[in-house]
């Protein structure tokens, strides 16, 4: 029988566009030391480590073995889990199974990226099939732009509707000193006037490139409760990484992988009405339009209702379902860490450690990951032991 598992501490770097003062290993170490301090343990209490990033952003082959001095993996079990943008949730879910299996009591999940070290787009375009896709339709922006324009066409959503999402996340980042875009608020006009990357996506609609790391401590039932007063229990997880070719994505049926992952995770967790059942959501929204369309896939509102739902303030701090109190991916995007930051921030909300970004009385939280070829991960956390 699988053991119950909780998050008992999290640490992250102060995310920046360039961290020239540290190399990758040293940056990882900052997040790890903060996670250990937050959990009030030392590295000797950690039984295993899971680490992830994207190889070609730093050109490090076998990051698990390269990083041990920073991660704490010298003479410990360590493995690398990596799935592109979803790496962070993949790492978190792997940490969950390390503990749930009964083989390890306390494990450390690490996601990191030093995006300043390379050309993100030059690396990301190589995700698509070298024979069929790489020369024509690859990388993040073209497929996201296709989705956005299809959504606008289908439901009459506007560029201003999307800009509202970017403004929300950047406003929330005012409360998060770790965010790269901390204290850099923007207006809808700023978004509309920012340079067009690929219609309808403009510069301020998309995530930045970030140097940063995140580390999260997972512990087993029986241990977690003794470590901190209110652990964040993993209630359910679900993953859909189905598609291989960008051309196979159907943009008119909603965000399919997210619908399917959410359906499974909600069913396991007993979530019936997401807008009511969740107290906070930390969503991997790499660009503003996702904040309209993907929340429909998550069942926060019906198809085409995203713009109104967001526009009415339901997703702001103080709204029915605050989204991205951390400032989200639009405010910080150290890619291998990005989805783990969603899980960490959701856990922080349950543990009540959100300081200025804390949503009151969080019992149930949703975290998501996005990546690869329109892939989605869903993680549900709760303050009550499942």
């Amino acid at each position, binding site marked *: 029988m699988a053991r119950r598992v909780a998050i008992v501490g999290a640490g992250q770097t102060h995310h920046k566009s360039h*961290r*020239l*003062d*540290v*190399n*990758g*290993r*040293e940056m990882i*170490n900052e997040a790890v030391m903060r996670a250990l301090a937050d959990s009030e343990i*030392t*590295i000797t209490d950690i039984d295993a480590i899971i680490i992830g990033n994207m190889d*070609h952003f*730093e*050109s490090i082959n076998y990051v698990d073995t390269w990083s*041990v*001095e*920073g991660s*704490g993996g*010298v*003479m410990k079990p360590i493995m690398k889990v990596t799935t592109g943008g979803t790496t962070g949730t993949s790492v978190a879910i792997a940490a969950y199974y390390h503990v749930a299996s009964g083989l390890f009591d306390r494990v450390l999940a690490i996601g990191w990226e*030093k995006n*300043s*070290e*390379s*050309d993100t787009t*030059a*690396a990301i375009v*190589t995700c698509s099939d*070298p*024979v069929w896709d*790489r020369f024509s339709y690859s990388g993040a922006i073209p497929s996201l732009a296709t989705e956005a324009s299809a959504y606008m066409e289908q439901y009459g959503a506007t560029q201003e509707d999307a800009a509202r999402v970017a403004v929300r996340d950047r406003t929330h980042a005012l409360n998060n000193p770790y965010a790269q875009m901390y204290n850099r608020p923007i207006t809808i006009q700023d978004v509309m006037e920012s340079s067009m990357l690929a219609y309808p996506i403009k510069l301020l609609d998309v995530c930045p490139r970030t140097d940063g790391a995140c580390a999260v401590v997972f512990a087993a039932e029986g241990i977690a409760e003794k470590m901190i007063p209110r652990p964040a229990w993993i209630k359910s997880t679900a993953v859909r990484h189905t598609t291989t070719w960008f051309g196979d994505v159907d943009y008119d049926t909603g965000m399919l992988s997210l619908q399917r992952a959410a359906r499974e995770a909600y069913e396991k967790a007993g979530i019936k009405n997401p807008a009511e059942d969740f107290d906070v959501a930390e969503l991997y929204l790499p660009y503003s339009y996702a904040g309209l369309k993907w929340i429909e896939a998550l069942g926060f509102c019906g198809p085409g209702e995203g713009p109104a739902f967001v526009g009415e303030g339901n997703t702001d701090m103080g709204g029915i379902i605050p989204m991205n109190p951390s400032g989200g991916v639009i405010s910080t995007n150290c890619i291998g860490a990005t989805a783990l930051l969603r899980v960490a921030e959701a856990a922080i909300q349950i543990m009540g450690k959100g300081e200025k970004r804390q949503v009151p009385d969080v019992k149930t939280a949703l975290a998501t990951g996005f990546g690869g070829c329109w892939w989605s991960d869903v993680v549900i956390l709760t303050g009550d032991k499942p």
Partner: protein
Amino acid sequence: MAAWLQDVEDLTLKGQINVPYTWSVGEVGSRFLVALRDEEKILGNRCPSCNTVYVPPRKNCGSCFKDIDDNQWAELGPEGVVTAFTIVRYDYPLQPAKAPFAYAIIKLDGADVGFVHLIRQGLEKLRNGVRVKALFKEERTGHILDIDSFVLLEA
């Protein structure tokens, strides 16, 4: 087997992942490389917990998992002892020397861990235990190859 498989031509496609990189060395490593460049010195540092003297120097000790603070720097070498080596017999564009040349793990005087570098000359005399000395390049840029190689010292 389908008939068309008998004589289908197997095509391949050439490609390369072309991504330029700019790696952060970090402050500790930068001091090490700057000392190579500006002073022809090899710096290490000592973990205050286990007393290991590391080269290249580290920001934290991987074994003790504690920060190594500022005042633990030590100048090492430039001489040391070979503890392991291999004479490389193949050429490859990645290698900074033409074969035959050697890679060696060198215990620099004052260090507790080995330092991996090149030996170009005197390969026939190369043994574990021989003493070697760092040979610096004339033109140095703050790079591990500011040390051209290590040279064997006469016994």
